[in-house]
């Protein structure tokens, strides 16, 4: 049985310790929330980081977008991802632990009216790659699972797609796959394939 920490507002695995988005606005706030949950250094086998789950439900064209909306959609999710990775570095078991980001694949495929959110998701995915390169020496893997926006929002879709609980199970599998790091796996029902 793996110990799992979810740094972000998402239901990905039962029995996981969850720190909500609101606590990831800064490292200090996150540390306080983690302390309240009794999280200890190096105690998690898997740290899951959902990115921009709260931001992708509402289309937001760039034309006319006010600055507060821009910050909320593009900059704030990236700050949360940074905070989450900083926390993950301390909390994931080393060696042997795994960090898995779950991102909507909007920034890889391009989706109209989600440009601000695409900035956040791709920025976070790049940070995961950077972390993977460095944390490899500590025996920590860092990978990303990319999903369709509808898997997160629950919006009607013409394609059958894996439920978020299945994504959580895939993350557990990735945590066991010690030889892969810095990669992105699309788990969107087969729509997008790696180039």
């Amino acid at each position, binding site marked *: 049985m793996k110990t799992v920490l979810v740094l972000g507002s998402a239901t990905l695995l039962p029995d996981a310790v969850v720190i909500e988005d609101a606590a990831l606005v800064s490292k200090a706030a996150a540390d306080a929330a983690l302390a309240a949950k009794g999280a200890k250094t190096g105690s998690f086998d898997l740290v899951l980081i959902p990115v921009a789950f709260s931001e992708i439900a509402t289309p937001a064209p760039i034309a006319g977008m006010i600055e507060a909306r*821009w910050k909320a959609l*593009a900059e704030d999710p990236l700050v949360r991802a940074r905070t989450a990775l900083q926390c993950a570095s301390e909390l994931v078991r080393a060696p042997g632990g795994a960090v898995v980001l779950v991102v909507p694949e909007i920034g890889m495929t391009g989706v109209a009216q989600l440009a601000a959110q695409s900035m*956040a998701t791709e920025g976070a995915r790049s940070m995961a790659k950077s972390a993977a390169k460095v944390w490899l020496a500590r025996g920590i893997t860092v990978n990303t699972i990319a999903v369709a926006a509808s898997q997160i929002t629950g919006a009607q879709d013409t394609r059958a797609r894996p439920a978020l609980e299945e994504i959580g199970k895939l993350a557990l599998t990735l945590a066991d796959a010690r030889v892969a790091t810095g990669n992105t796996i699309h788990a969107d029902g087969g729509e997008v394939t790696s180039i």
Partner: protein
Amino acid sequence: MAGPLADVSVLITGASQGVGRGMALAAAAAGAAVTVTARRIEAAEKVAAEVRARGHKGFAVTCDVTNRASVEKAVADTVQHFGKLTALIHNAVSAKSSIPVPIEKIEDDYWDEQIAVALRGTYYCAQAALAQLQANKGTLILLTSGGGIEGSITLPTYGATKAGQRGFVKSLAREWGPLGIRVNAVSPVAMTPAMENFFKLQPVQEARINGRAALGRLGDCETDIGRATAFLLGPDSAYVTGQTLVLTGGSFML
């Protein structure tokens, strides 16, 4: 001035040196009217004068991409001077972007400045240019980096901003395609003044970086990076949008 970019009026941010200067010189040589911008007018004017000295159209204005009003004024000044804006290239980067800081040590001031220049600056540039780009069926180009595509051991914040811009490019290309606006990214590796300084400090890095490139050398800002970027400004790239043009001599291949 005749040339493939005779109908192009382009504003380039961060164009006082390096890749920005190279793109300005190459676009102007292909016939474009070029607005060179930098935070200091003296620095921008030096390159604009260089453009004019070669017999081309160069105009200098100040532009701080972290300030919405400054970006809007640079666009307005360009339209007043050249009659229109058909392209904007956002090339400016924060001076802090080349300072190595691991993820665990990133603090707010270091982060915020890079976000302001690369990401919020992109948002300001896109909004400020939209009306002109739509009216002229123009193009927006963002400068990204292999550090964003591959991740970066030493510069994770820079990598995040550059990858963020690339995600923005793809989604905005879909959003603005129906308006007739193309949106692309350029990912260069070139011998810039910053790179020259880096090699002076760490000579061993020059051979390592050159060795990564299939062509065995760093790009020239004007002839290698500028001319290829000029292609994205002109009519020959009318069917190209949402793409990243990787100009690395083969050190990184998509």
